[in-house]
């Protein structure tokens, strides 16, 4: 194979892969801001790696954690934060948010979370619905949230792509988009899709209809991928032949060469199908599946569907019955993202228990996550964890703070594939850090300072400096009668 054909082949592969890997449409414009070093002194540090370090310093510089230890020396230009009696944790990560897509105010004009017009809409991307002015972003920041995954809603079997954002104020979502984070795909089990489409008298209207829907979608994507594979093979053949002719052409007469060239027509590529393209990327492992699923039996069904089509579900979301299959989830390396205590609002949430997180966390290699799915809950993820700890304790499943913090940091980072960048306080990691006024697993705990990539994004002592959505401008003038 000569150099030319190799280049052609490479570019055709890139073409076929498209979306997640290729031309990177809608690239992130987020840049780590320049900020002076910060030395946080004498805090109780929950590292997110399972350790609790008392009376410990954390040094932040150049957007990264530089060091964690006792009696660290401060660089000359460092701001010193006296954190005696305070607690320090990694920035909190919520992998189930609809901020921006179901924004406040919840008016029709901002109702952009569910493309509920077809049960499979893997072609839609949540980021195109994100309204960066949702005031929910800033209230979440006050609760210590530094990263979130924004998902489409759960009306559809396959709802579309998620987007991972840093919780920084931006006029565009691209300015918030987490650089290099891979996409997630939102899928949904159970009542929501079957209700939404059942009411329209179309499929799916049952759980068996749901499963048929996922399977057909992925079968179509397999077929689509085969078309691309075939095209790529033909293109490669074509390139090879063309190159051979070019090599041999010098020896032959000009007339003959021209005639032969006419026979060589390049294959035409299949038409891009944005829906199937996303699913094909899922099957290649380039997009991570986050699946809304309440019941344990349905989660088990979906693990089998994933096996059938060779993709991985990284996390079940809501997972109200995850406690019934805690061992299986741990064995499979699948995370469960849960509320502390939501239950009862629909039949598939009827078996909710307040020990769900603690039970799911118990087996070895488990991956329990606290998520919000709520513009209110996201402000208090630490309290959700605290409630689950208390109920776990009463059931004989003691979870120490240094372990529970992983539900909000390291485990969600892992589910997003960002565990090398965020989720723990370790030298070299991005400096997403929260300073709490005390033990964060308390109803009285408040985040005092929130850093994202080393930049102070929220400071409770200086309310005037906190981010304020464009939407809320003018409010204080109207209030001051």
């Amino acid at each position, binding site marked *: 194979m000569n150099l030319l054909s190799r280049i052609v082949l490479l570019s055709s592969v890139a073409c076929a892969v498209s979306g997640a890997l290729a031309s990177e449409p809608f690239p992130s414009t987020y840049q780590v801001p320049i900020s002076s070093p910060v030395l946080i002194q004498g805090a109780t540090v929950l590292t997110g790696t399972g350790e609790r370090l008392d009376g410990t310093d954390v040094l932040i510089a150049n957007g990264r954690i530089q060091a964690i230890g006792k009696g660290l020396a401060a660089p000359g230009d460092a701001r010193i934060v006296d954190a005696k009696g305070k607690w320090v944790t990694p920035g909190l990560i919520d992998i189930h948010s609809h901020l921006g897509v179901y924004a406040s105010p919840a008016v029709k004009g901002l109702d952009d979370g569910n493309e509920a017009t077809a049960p499979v809409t893997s072609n839609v991307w949540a980021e195109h619905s994100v309204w960066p002015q949702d005031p929910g972003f800033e209230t979440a920041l006050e609760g210590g949230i530094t990263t979130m995954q924004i998902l489409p809603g759960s009306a559809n079997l396959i709802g579309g792509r998620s987007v991972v954002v840093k919780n920084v104020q931006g006029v565009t979502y691209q300015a918030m988009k987490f650089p290099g984070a891979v996409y997630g795909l939102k899928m949904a089990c159970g009542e929501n899709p079957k209700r939404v489409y059942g009411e329209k008298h179309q499929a799916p209207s049952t759980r068996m209809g749901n499963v048929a829907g996922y399977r057909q979608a992925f079968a179509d994507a397999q077929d689509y991928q085969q078309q691309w594979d075939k095209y790529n093979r033909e293109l490669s053949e074509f390139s090879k032949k063309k190159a051979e002719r070019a090599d041999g052409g010098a020896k032959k007469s000009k007339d003959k060469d021209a005639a032969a060239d006419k026979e060589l027509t390049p294959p035409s590529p299949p038409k891009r199908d944005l829906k199937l393209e996303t699913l094909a990327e899922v099957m290649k492992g380039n997009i991570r599946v986050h699946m809304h699923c309440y019941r344990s039996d349905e989660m088990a069904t979906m693990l089998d569907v994933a096996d059938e089509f060779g993709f991985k579900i990284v996390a079940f979301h809501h997972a109200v019955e995850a406690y019934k299959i805690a061992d299986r989830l741990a064995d499979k390396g699948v995370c469960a993202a849960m509320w502390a205590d939501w239950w009862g609002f629909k039949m598939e949430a009827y078996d909710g228990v307040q020990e769900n997180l603690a039970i799911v966390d118990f087996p070895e290699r488990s991956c329990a996550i606290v998520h919000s799915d709520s513009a209110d809950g996201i402000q*208090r993820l630490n309290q959700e964890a605290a409630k689950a700890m208390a109920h776990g*304790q009463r059931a004989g499943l003691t979870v120490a703070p240094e372990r529970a913090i992983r539900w909000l940091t390291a485990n969600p980072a892992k589910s997003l594939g960002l565990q090398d960048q965020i989720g723990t306080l370790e030298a070299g990691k991005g400096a997403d850090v929260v300073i709490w006024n005390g033990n964060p697993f308390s*109803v009285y705990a408040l985040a005092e300072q929130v850093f994202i990539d080393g930049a102070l994004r929220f400071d409770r002592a200086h309310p005037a400096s906190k981010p304020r959505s464009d939407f809320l401008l003018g409010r204080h003038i109207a209030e001051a009668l």
Partner: protein
Amino acid sequence: MKFLYLPALMAGGIMAAQCAVAQDFVIRGATVHTASAKGTLKNIDVVVRGGIIVAIGSDAGTSGAVIDAKGKELTPGLFGGLTDIGLEEIAAEAQTVDSTLNLKSPAWDQQWRPELDVTVAYNPRSFVVPITRIEGVTWTVLVPSAEDSIIGGQGSAVVLDGRYNAALSGSRSLFIQMGAAGAKVAGGTRAAEYMLLEQAIHEAHAPGPIGQGALLHAAGREALTRYLSGGRVVVQVDRAADILSVVTFAERNGMKPVILGGDEAWLVAKELATANVPVILDPLNDLPTDFDRLGATLENAARLQRAGVRIAFSSGDTPQARLIRQLAGNAVAHGLPWESALAAITSTPADIFGLGATHGRIAVGQSADLVLWSGDPLEVTTLADQVWIAGRPVEMKSRQTELRDRYVEKVKAHQAR
């Protein structure tokens, strides 16, 4: 686990034999949060006889069983807020929901049914009842609603000990939906809410039968009339301007208003204090979720309290009524004094619903609705060790604890971390 289970087991053991009748006992040595003017009393004994608190003091009353509560905290049984406990099993399953009237009448042909009282539909055998009460919630106020009228109907406070006749007398109230949500069923403008209310009040006062186009039936006129001479009317409304309009309207028509929601109530705190109108709010509401709540803030509760407005808390969430303490704790974190936060989920709602003489406080003569806690009652990591309602110990079990026990054993048996 060793420590946490002990008190519950002890109390349960002592009480095991007497399920049916209220028992005489003394809770010894607890830190007692009275939710009354007496505040918090340390190392105090509370004596219960015949379901009533008969003495509070040091070493008071030694007859009957003794519950050692040293190092524990005791509060009155908590208010669960305004809910549909016992009226709604699963919100998304219509056949399990009895809280909402839907006569499917169009806006121009409205039928108002203030005579509807949802209390009669209360089911004390609902699974939600034990799930809620083992978290320390001993009573709630049932809220009716209507899909095509701003008048929801009437509801009463009920006690959550499983009795059939659960309504607490004197607590019956009329519920009205105003603001943007009311405007939707009143014909598109919130002004029509007042127009229709005026019409209904005229009908109620009218001497004879009303002709075509009447909002009210005879029974409805009779029911509404009861509220036009000092009756308690709970009005759901959030916008500051609407709150003031409601207060003015209610007073002009002889109704005693209670504001429910009140996300912007802090903006008119002074006026509410002067008019002595209480507010039942969710102190966690801080987002401008609609244009009636642009002023929502986590400091709503603290600001209202500072202005002298009586406040109580309610999330309005039926399955999660048990989280009422979390609302109170967060209000404290955002500036509300701890004692006021406790009052907002005990004595103040009892006063608002006319039950203050018998419920909501730890005081002599009050019903022995008590909760013994493992620590600070407003802290999310604290759990109820034992609950008593009318002097009877509650079995600290529910469908959820049975699910828990089944699967905890399973996961423990499989592998240890």
